[in-house]
């Protein structure tokens, strides 16, 4: 079964392998800063992969998934505030909290669809945002400075330990998702996206499957947020600002929302552009280097308009059926 997975999802495997060896590159050329950029790519890529379970595979446009990242991050921050430093425990807390929140929010929000679903998910995310802003005890607006969590087997302050912890979780999530989207559950989820009323007519209650998908995606975003807190050594409501939910959606669309690897590809391109464009513009057109978004925005729109299926779609694969989709 694992061998079978190697033959499919080629792009995802290539990205994971490159990520595994990336630190060799940075240490050879003495570019430790880039480890930091790539950790951010992995964290946002993981969250976007989680969101894409509902967005790309389930057809539910949830506009509030950064809230789950925020809850995960605060699970780390608040646990540490009370002296619970164990990172594994914090990851578990994040998963459980986001799972429960996912059930509650999903149960209410999934009664709606279309624009109402977008608005209601955004509304719940804003509620959570302002809830954390109001928590004076944990810094409110200003947030909470924290140390990297204690993962027992490896001290995150040793060089590269955090990098490989994030990589390990990302790889685990990726492999689980490779199995998930081809499983009976995953196939039903994609069938619901294709035609909900036919799935219902086949005797399947769409809500059950959509809710399960929603909870899985919330948990993955929570794990990403929990690690994000250690990476940033700081937690504030900023991590769950609605613009981050927007970023996650842009990342997915940019990379290609019908592909498992799409969100990772999107995160790589999105964050590299964010990193490189200002410098590039500084050299080429200094007057607008502050406003690099002027270039970034149209670039995104171009990919969305002309590259149907995002960058993954552009990269090849005219195969569109559900079975073939997973080959890339």
């Amino acid at each position, binding site marked *: *079964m694992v061998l*079978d997975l190697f033959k499919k999802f080629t792009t995802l495997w290539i990205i994971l392998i490159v990520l595994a060896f990336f630190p060799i590159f940075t240490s050879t050329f003495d570019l430790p800063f880039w480890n930091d950029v790539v950790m951010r790519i992995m964290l946002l890529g993981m969250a976007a992969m989680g969101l894409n379970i509902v967005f790309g595979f389930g057809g539910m446009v949830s506009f509030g998934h950064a809230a789950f990242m925020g809850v995960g991050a605060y699970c780390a921050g608040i646990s540490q505030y009370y002296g619970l430093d164990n990172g594994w425990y914090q990851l578990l807390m994040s998963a459980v909290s986001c799972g429960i929140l996912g059930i509650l929010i999903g149960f209410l929000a999934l009664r709606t669809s279309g624009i109402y679903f977008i608005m209601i998910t955004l509304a719940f995310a804003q509620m959570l945002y302002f809830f954390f802003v109001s928590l004076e005890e944990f810094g409110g607006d200003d947030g909470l400075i924290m140390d990297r969590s204690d993962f027992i087997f490896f001290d995150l302050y040793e060089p590269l330990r955090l990098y490989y912890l994030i990589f390990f979780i990302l790889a685990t999530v990726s492999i689980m998702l490779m*199995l*998930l989207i*081809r*499983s*009976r*559950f*995953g*196939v*039903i989820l*994609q*069938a619901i*996206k*294709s*035609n909900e*009323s*036919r*799935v*219902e*007519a*086949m*005797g*399947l*209650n*769409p809500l059950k*499957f959509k809710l*399960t998908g929603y909870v899985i995606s919330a948990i993955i975003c929570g794990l990403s947020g929990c690690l994000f807190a250690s990476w940033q050594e700081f937690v504030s409501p900023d991590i769950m600002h609605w613009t981050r939910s927007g970023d996650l959606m842009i990342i997915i669309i940019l990379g290609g929302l019908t592909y498992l690897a799409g969100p990772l590809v999107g995160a790589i391109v999105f964050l590299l552009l964010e990193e490189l464009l200002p410098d590039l513009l500084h050299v080429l057109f200094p007057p607008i280097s502050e406003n690099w978004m002027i270039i970034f925005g149209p670039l995104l729109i171009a990919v969305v308009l002309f590259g149907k299926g995002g960058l993954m779609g552009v990269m090849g694969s005219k195969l*569109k*059926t*559900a*079975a073939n989709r997973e080959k890339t």
Partner: protein
Amino acid sequence: MKNNVLELRSLRKKFGALKATDDVSLEVEKGKIHALIGPNGAGKTTLISQIFGNLKPDSGDIFLDGKSITNTSVADRALLGIGRSFQISNVLMDFSVLENAIVAKISHSQETFRFFRPAFSDPSLIEGGFAILKRVGMEQMADRKVSDLAHGERRLLELALALAMEPLLVLLDEPMAGAGPEDTIFMTKVIAGLRGQTTILLIEHDMDVVFQLAERISVLVEGAVIASGTPDEISQNRLVREAYLGSDQ
């Protein structure tokens, strides 16, 4: 009690002031092909939607095999044994023909919350999927994408999906609408072949098809059943000739 698979009692449904279903009582006998005919806008689709649960009646009761299903969800009705093909093709457009059948097979197997083993390469599901396609003679087209199928082929696939759960009752809403003459002949043959295996409530405008297939016919006009009987009785019925057949023939 008679052997009725479906029984409707005083079903009513209004859209605003329009009585789309007006006090409909109807019995569909087990194993029969029962046609529902009526002019455009008579309320045939609306009636079928209430039987399948897509629409809720304002009042009245629906019994499947003697048990009330008036408040049962669509998915549960499908599990209890109703299959439906819609007036406008309603299949999984992004999937292949076999994949459509496999999703139906997954539901039929009741093992839906499985998160690890791949579904589309599961031998038992593939076998089950092919069995579903075989009933409508589509096994040769298994690997075609639905979006590439001709209209008539999509109608055929939808019929296969409606039959996939081995339903007690199949609701077919103009199954050959938009299909070419050859497809219509083939589809008529397929439906005739189902006689005795399952019970069919068939909406159809083509009177040749109706009189070839149906053992009973009910005529719906402006939401109300104006006549129900054997094809002979219906073709003799003066009310029906005036209201409907007269304008058609």
